[in-house]
């Protein structure tokens, strides 16, 4: 009987625990997470902020005593250290827990820019359920909210804040919104869209410090301008939770390096989700893809391999879908193109529609889409099945919106 231990009760950890239970019904499964909550999805927090769902709507599982029933031992506790030789972890309360197989699914933590005032009350992250509660308490209709960082997470939070009818300003250091998810055309389109909906967007703008004046927070901007706010939400980046791995020999770069079985450089230790740097399906390199689908795939595949069901992983795909005040955008894989590849796009600036496709040889390797909500998944399908596009490549270059036809014919062997 194997003794499985999982660190981190986010999506990766929970799915791994459930999968282990399924593939190895006799093993013991222990799940340790440090948050004082029922396992929840970070990515559902914006919908709680937008008041679409209550707190329980963010929970990963809804069944009563779900984990109990599955026989998953779920505990609250913070892991401080790992001893790979002794196969045990030490918790902050001084206890320790042993394992035969370990999964590290501890996700990441937020980082704030090294400027004064970041520790003031009213400067919040939007990362945990507790963060969301704090934001909800401050972001009342009409209150002035400044969002620092217009990356993917920032933009999702933006949507939620806007839904709370706050007076919203977004500040981004880079020259456009979503610098790592959108090219210039798409980023500018999203920015214009946001502005047309009454959100103030400041790009190429750095915050030099935050101070308190009475109840107000005051942001000093690089140009000398200052900005008052009731709440500052900071979405300026994250780092993997790997501190407790020091001196374990587990290789860490941007995240924990894992192979295509999600195994780390140390036997019997696996990693999954935001904390893992695993194979990328399109580039073949190891990358951190801090997204929900990757967390769930990692969790599942890692668990199978932990249980001895050899399951190679084809790699994750960097992809995102975002709703910015009603404008839906998505990005896939090498959307910025690959060297020697070819590209096509369709732009309708007035209609806020944009589709960009990137090809390498006969394959689709990346895409950006604005305003596309129907059959978006086929982009993933075309990319990861790596079907040769044949004559459809030329057709797609002519009209990228032939995607669905291309997909059907290429994957279903339709002769048209």
């Amino acid at each position, binding site marked *: 009987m194997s003794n499985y231990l999982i660190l981190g009760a986010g999506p990766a950890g929970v799915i791994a625990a459930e999968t282990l239970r399924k593939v190895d019904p006799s093993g013991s499964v222990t799940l340790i997470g440090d948050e004082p909550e029922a396992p929840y999805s970070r990515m559902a927090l914006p919908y709680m902020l937008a008041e679409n769902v209550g707190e329980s709507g963010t929970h990963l599982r809804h069944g009563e005593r779900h984990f109990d029933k599955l026989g998953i031992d779920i505990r609250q506790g913070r892991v401080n250290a790992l001893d790979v030789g002794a196969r045990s972890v030490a918790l902050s309360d001084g206890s320790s827990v042993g394992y035969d197989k370990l999964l590290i699914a501890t996700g990441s933590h937020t980082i704030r820019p090294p400027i004064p005032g970041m520790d003031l009350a009213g400067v919040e992250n939007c990362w945990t359920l507790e963060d969301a509660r704090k934001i909800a308490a401050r972001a009342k209709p009409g209150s002035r909210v400044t969002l620092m960082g217009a990356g993917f997470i920032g933009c999702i939070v933006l949507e939620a804040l806007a839904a709370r009818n706050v007076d919203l300003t977004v500040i981004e250091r880079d020259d456009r919104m979503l610098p790592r998810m959108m090219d210039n055309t798409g980023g500018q389109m999203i920015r214009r869209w946001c502005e047309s909906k009454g959100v103030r967007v400041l790009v190429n703008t750095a915050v030099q410090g935050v101070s308190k004046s009475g109840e107000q927070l005051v942001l000093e901007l690089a140009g000398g301008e200052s900005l008052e706010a009731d709440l500052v939400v900071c979405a300026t980046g994250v780092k993997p939770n790997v501190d407790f791995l020091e001196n374990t020999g587990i290789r860490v770069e941007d995240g924990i390096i894992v192979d295509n079985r999600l195994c780390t450089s140390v036997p019997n230790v696996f990693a999954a989700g935001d904390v893992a740097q695993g194979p990328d399906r399109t580039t073949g390199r190891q990358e951190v893809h801090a997204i929900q689908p990757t967390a769930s795939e990692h969790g599942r595949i890692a668990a199978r391999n932990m249980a001895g069901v050899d399951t190679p992983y084809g790699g994750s795909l960097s992809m995102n879908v975002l709703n910015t005040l009603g404008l839906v955008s998505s990005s896939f894989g090498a959307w910025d193109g690959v060297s020697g590849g070819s590209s096509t796009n369709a732009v309708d600036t007035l209609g806020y529609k944009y589709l960009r496709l990137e090809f390498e040889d006969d394959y689709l390797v990346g895409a950006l889409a604005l305003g596309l909500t129907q059959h978006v998944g086929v982009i993933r399908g075309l990319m990861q099945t790596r079907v040769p596009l044949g004559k459809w490549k030329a057709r797609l270059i002519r009209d990228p919106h032939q995607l*669905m036809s291309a997909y059907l014919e290429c994957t279903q062997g339709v002769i048209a």
Partner: protein
Amino acid sequence: MSWQRKILRVDLTKGEITQEPLNMEWANEYIGERGLATKYLWENMDPTVDAMSPGNVLIFATGPLTGTMASTSGRYAVVTKGPLTGAIACSNSGGKFGAELKFAGYDMLILEGKSPAPVYLHINNGEVEIRPADQIWGSTVWNTEEWLKSHHQDPQMKVASIGIAGENGVRYACVVNDLHRAAGRSGVGAVMGSKNLKAIAVRGTVGVKIDKDPKAFMDVVKDTHQMLADNAGRKGLTKYGTNAMLTSMQKFGGLPTHNFQEVQFEGADKIDARAMMKPNDSGHVNLITNKACFGCTIACGRIAHIDKDHFTIVNRKEYWHASGGLEYETAFALGSVCGIDDIDAATFAGYLMNEHGMDPISFGVTLACAMELYEKGAITKEDTGGVELKFGNPEALTIMAEKTGTYEGFGQDIGLGSKRLAEKYGHPELAMVVKGQEFAGYDSRALQGMGLGYVTSNRGACHLKHDVFAEDMEDTGHTGKAKPCKDSQDNIAAIDSTGLCIFTTAAWGLGDFARQINAACEGDWSEDRVRECGERTWNLERQFNLKAGLTKADDTLPKRLLEDPVPTGTAKGNVHALDKMLPEYYELRGWGDDGVPTPDTLKRLGLS
């Protein structure tokens, strides 16, 4: 209620777009589509204005059942004053455009005035805009649709547009939707062109709701679907398409050949439904499959392709694809009436009709007229730009189809239509038309009831506005046919107003249409009420024509059909007995000897 209760009105002169509620009082009197559009036309324009002038009004109308699960619910009608006839023009079409217009939230689209520059209309549910068409003006229908879909990044968009023929006022230019479905007859595309309107692009995601009693509606629909499923006539249409008719007409001796000089065609078996399914010498089979219009459980539409080695496309790869294939009317008009037995040439000419937006019937019959004029020496090789315009010459067919479509050379003369062409070349008697519109594929002498229908059809010669077929096939005489002609005209006017297709009459009687309307629309819709709506529509169309200046004198046939006996076939020796049938018809209609509805009739129908 399956109505959206909303009309989109576009003043192209001013560039103004407005929405208005659908007049439900009128809808209760005219059902929808053809009838209701006729009422709106009547109320919105002066019938005496020139059809090609800004004063003409162009209406796209759906019916109450358009966009529902009733079978064949894809129909919409285009109603306007016709440039070929000067009479009311009412052309309906299937495909997917009409339902999409309804799904976008509109029952009807009324286009007025004339845009100062070429434009197209883009409808995306509630967002409607008039956009410059400089990038597509001068394009074919097919390229226009492709451009619009890719420009608006909307592959699901539905498009109705005109080709180069419509832009240039070819008198029988049509409005083509979904690449090969068309509001084909009476030159409605020429009117659209005269308004500088290239296309209407629609995307509708609102949908159609049945408020009255959805369950009852679905029950009726289930039943009527089953009736179609079980019906033998329907099965024939599905398998062979309408071109099964060619075999019957050939056998019977009613297949117009060589500009109606004959009624049987030697090459008939080379262009009929079976020929479409048979491999040619190199193994190529013309017909690929059958396709349905929106909501249609018949699927009579043909999808065909041309032998790549055929002279028409051997060097033109751009036509090496499938598209709409021959139906009876195209097989007759691009085949027998021009003496052509080359199925690929006829199919290719059919492609060109769709690509350039022309009515194949009027084109084919005009070409046949030109061929007769050519053989008589009234038209010379000089006129035709060197084309040997002889009956039976497939090259003459495809060259002229293309030249007319692109409005070049002698194509401009063919684009006049038979009446104007025959007049121009000094032989008005050779134009096979009523009120300026060409006959369809039935000879009036062999089918006397059909002849009366042609004469009295309000849009000029047309085979689709009445149904005396069974009587005509039974007996080649004329007696007793005025009544079924009149009755079926009323019924069909009603059916054309529902949003459904008349081909369903293979299985459905008027009562079945009434049941479906009754389940979908407010109020009680009995068969009698529906029929009366049809009769009202018919009489209002007539009123429009009379006001436009047409008279009893326009209710006539070409001399050939009145005087020259049928040379062969079942009805050998017959001429058309119009003088005997017309007075009876007028009387049945409650019209005076002058062909004008009497005050009593108008009063009875609520038209006074």
